[in-house]
């Protein structure tokens, strides 16, 4: 699929902001089953400094500083991404018993496995809880193939938790999500990560987009898409297997990867520190446009 993603964030301040420093993780990577083509980041007012780098996880990060007084800030990213469907056939090794992965991580006898320890440790927003490990073990029964078990866990999260965009915020702790059984994609991804890490499997967070289709016959609304998040499980010799507990499926070619990390804190699309500004409002709009769709 060929997509054009437009991601706009608009801040409106009540007081003047004299200086702001920001970090954006809004540029899709070229990796695995996707290629990022042209992209353009536009910031209004024009920043004095813009600089792109790669972070620890290989994501593209853009630092920019706006140094003239302003009362609104608009950050607009347009990128074109080519995606392929994930291989439909099970990759070689993904049917192995999940305990093999766990034990390989414990042995850690290869450099790559050692570096992957990062995805086993607690991270800023995800701490394992005994009850989550227990929850995972219901899917990860002895000897079960890792792919099948992970898909089962994905299915259970989908079934056991209800999607409720009013139930949580960025800072809602996992224990509360677990107790109240509701949340959004970010919470479900964190929940899956904590469950997998709890039984010794390396798991990470993927932020990105998902093309949504309008109801049959209806016209797609501009700005109706949203940022999305799902979970990735590392299997030695295979790589990352991805699961979307919010939609009970493995990512398809309609999924676009933006950034990878241990949890949301590593990949937040836009943060910043402003001087002044007073109370402010923020609006985000995301459009994922299928470039080959008949007009």
């Amino acid at each position, binding site marked *: 699929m060929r997509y054009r993603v437009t991601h706009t964030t608009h801040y409106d301040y009540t007081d003047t902001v004299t200086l702001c420093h*920001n970090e954006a993780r809004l540029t899709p990577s070229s990796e695995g089953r996707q290629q990022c083509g042209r992209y353009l980041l536009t910031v209004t007012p024009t920043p004095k400094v813009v600089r792109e780098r790669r972070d620890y996880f290989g994501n593209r990060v853009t630092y920019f*500083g706006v140094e003239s007084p302003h009362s609104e800030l608009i950050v607009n990213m347009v990128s074109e991404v080519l995606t392929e469907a994930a291989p439909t056939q099970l990759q070689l090794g993904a049917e192995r018993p999940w305990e093999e992965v766990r034990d390989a991580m414990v042995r850690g006898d290869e*450099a790559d496995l050692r570096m992957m320890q990062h995805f086993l440790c607690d991270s800023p927003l995800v701490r394992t809880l005994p009850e989550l490990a227990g929850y995972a073990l219901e899917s990860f029964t002895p000897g079960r193939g890792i792919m099948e078990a992970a898909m089962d866990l994905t299915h259970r999260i989908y079934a056991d938790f209800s999607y409720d965009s009013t139930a949580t915020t960025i800072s809602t702790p996992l224990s509360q999500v677990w107790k109240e059984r509701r949340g959004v994609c970010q919470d479900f991804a964190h929940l899956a990560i904590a469950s997998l890490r709890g039984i010794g499997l390396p798991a990470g967070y993927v932020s990105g987009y998902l093309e949504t289709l309008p109801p049959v016959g209806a016209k797609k609304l501009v700005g109706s898409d949203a940022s999305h998040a799902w979970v990735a499980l590392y299997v030695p010799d295979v790589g990352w297997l991805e699961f979307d507990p919010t939609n009970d499926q493995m990512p398809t070619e309609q999924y676009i990867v933006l950034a990878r990390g241990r949890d949301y804190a590593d990949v937040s699309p836009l*943060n910043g520190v402003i*001087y002044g500004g007073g109370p402010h409002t923020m609006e985000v709009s995301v459009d994922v446009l299928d470039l080959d769709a008949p007009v």
Partner: protein
Amino acid sequence: MSEAIAGAGEPGGLLSPKYADDRGVYDELWSAPDADSKSQVRGHWQALLSAFQQLGGRDLEGRRKEARRLFRENGVSYSAMADGQRGTRPWELDPIPFLVPAADWAKIESGLAQRARLLDAILKDLYGPRHLIRGGMVPAELIFRHPGFLLQADGALGHYEVALTLYAADVVRGADGGFRVVSDRAQAPAGAGLALETRIACSRILPNLIRATHVHRLASFFRTLRNDLAGRAPHQKLDPRIVVLGQGSDDPSYFDHAYLASYLGFPLVEGADLTVRESHLWLRTIEGLKLVDMVLRRVPDSQCDPLELDPASGAGIPALLEVARRGNVGMVNPLGAGILENPGLLPFLPRIARQFLGEELKLESIPSWWCGDEKSKAYVLEHLDGLLIKSIEHGRAPVWGGALTAEELAHWRARIEKDPGLYVGQEPGVSATTPALVKGEIRPRSAVTRCFVAATEGTFRTMPGGFTRTTSPGEITGGLSASLQGTCKDTWVLASEEEKHLISWPAAAMPAFVVAYESLPSRAAESLYWVGRHAEQAEFLTRLARSALRKFNESRDYGDPADSGCLAILLYALKVLSTGRSSAAPTLISGSEFVENTLLETVRDATLEGSLAATFKALERSALSVRDRWSTDTWRVIDDISETLEEQRRLPRAGSVALEDTLDRLVSALVGLTGLTIESTTHEHGWQFLMIGRRVERARNLILLMQSTVMREAEEGIEHQLLEALLIANESVMTHRRRYRAALDISSAVQVLLLDTSNPRSLAYQVLELAKHLDALPREGGARRGMAADQRALLQASTLVRLADTSTLLATDVDQPHQRDELAAFLAAVDNELGIATAALDQAYFTHVQPTQQLVAVTRDVDDKPEVD
């Protein structure tokens, strides 16, 4: 075997009779018992011990007291200040030093140099290729779980030839006599300032001994450090701007930072003094933004940058890490260095030394076991009651297994079993003892010494000395190395025979302060301005209170009604001046008790708005926030004033004699402070702000004083007394007497107090001087821009005072012959111009840092944290 120690337990002797019983396996003073169970005083201690014995316990305790006074005066005790209160547990100096013989020092020195080299290599590897993790030399979990490992700093150390520029290690002597490292400090190692201060105090209380003992001096280490830092700064400037980044005067280590900053001659700044623009770091000064080349930080890693690191950090500078990453500012030490403080690294150091340096580790670490390793865990679980339990997470105090009950031990075993990778077991390292002065006797104590190491041309140098802290023998706090309070000792590194002639002690062992800054930070300018204002206000109030008190005594002694009338007006003026606003008209005072209480309150009640005590507290706070700018003498005066007020507060309420004595002492001290700040501060911009504050305050006080006393003509008897009191309160009696002989009336008083341009206490003098100080300030755009608002206002005020004459000012209306409306209008006009000038000054020079906020705040998942012990 106490009988084996000669001299111990002799009547009147200095050595405690219990020394032999209490000493550790290794003792600094006495050798281990030989075959005949005899102990000898170690060679390097003999001369010193007999010198101490000659002095005797009482004399030594006296010297300790002297050291306590020096510490307090120099502000060491301020380090524990909380909400304006003085610290209750200041450092206590033990006059008996910690001796390190030359041979031992040689081992420590080369051991620490090697260790710094090793840690530098580890730091660069962990934020670069990570061979240590990839190759399995260090368990990945040990690094990834330590909060000091900053993913954000990955790849940001490439600009450093040497990344670990300043490093500290806590060392202890082991049972076998060898020194070992307890812990490594790499982010912002505190204590170097305290080490200097301890040395200075020690050389004051034991001047001859320290010279005779051939002790290595510390000064050259800091001189070299200063030059090395300058040489390491990016941008290759001849004179780079280096700042010491602290966390403000509420930080428990503030004294240490301020002392180090002023010793090195670098300005001490806070996060709000700095800003990032165009990917560079800038200092806000009264001359605008100035480029900063290097930051000697005293702020922990996570608190340095709210954009990329902890969003809640108030002490940091947004985007600092981005500037550092681009190599546009040098950081000492780089952000991310906190990983080196991981206690779990200790067991792996010997292997890494072999791998990275091809050398054996010269200076061992104290035996430590990381429980993430199965065998180590088994050992720790088995020996838990003899080990310190340390967590590799920040902010957790070590737990001493020996102090735990069986139940608690079981609890800890379970915790370690549950998450072994989080814990490190460590031997407590208190098997050696050193002589210490305890209640007039020498007794054995455990000691830990913090040593400082700095990178210098291709190698590392160790400061020949250190900061030694002591505890009771066998007392294992676990917090020993982290605690920055308690008893400390000077560390005397003894010169070898060959080195002895190289050490020269100047007659005065006081190292000079280096205070020379080119651009004054805005916050410092503001603090200095307020020091000037508060000091002047304190002096003015003291003098006025003293005048009122004398008048009170006279009125009581002679019963003259004119005295009481005058007293009422003076008390009213005191109230107006202390609160800064006029209130209801003066009322006749009844009862001497009331007067006495009012005066006492105005002097010593710190909770009363505008009281002398409250004013002084404000002065102290302003002075403290620029502590690095004051000489020891200046600080001593501030301390004296504080003490005087404190003493007065402790006195019973009645007692105007004692109060007058207090006020006399305060006047002298405040005049001394003025003299010191004026005479010993170089006439740079800082001095201008100090003087501006002083002149503004004195001018406004004079205006308020006149407004509250002579706006209405009083009865003749009262008026004469009042004018006399005003002249006395303004130190202008002599001036008046010279000019007018005895003829004192309102006209001559107004001339002397307000219009006489040659009387340094007059209003006119303040205004004209103020105009000069304002002209000396740096101006944006230079002189081409013409006059600034503050200069304009002062020109108006100067014109007003120059044109005024007494006959016009004192002309009265026929309808209201007793009202002095012309004088009132004149005072109001001058006051108005002063108000405009100060507001303009504030706008142009002082910090107006806007509050920062996060655009997207990710708070940490606090609820899910495991319980805190």
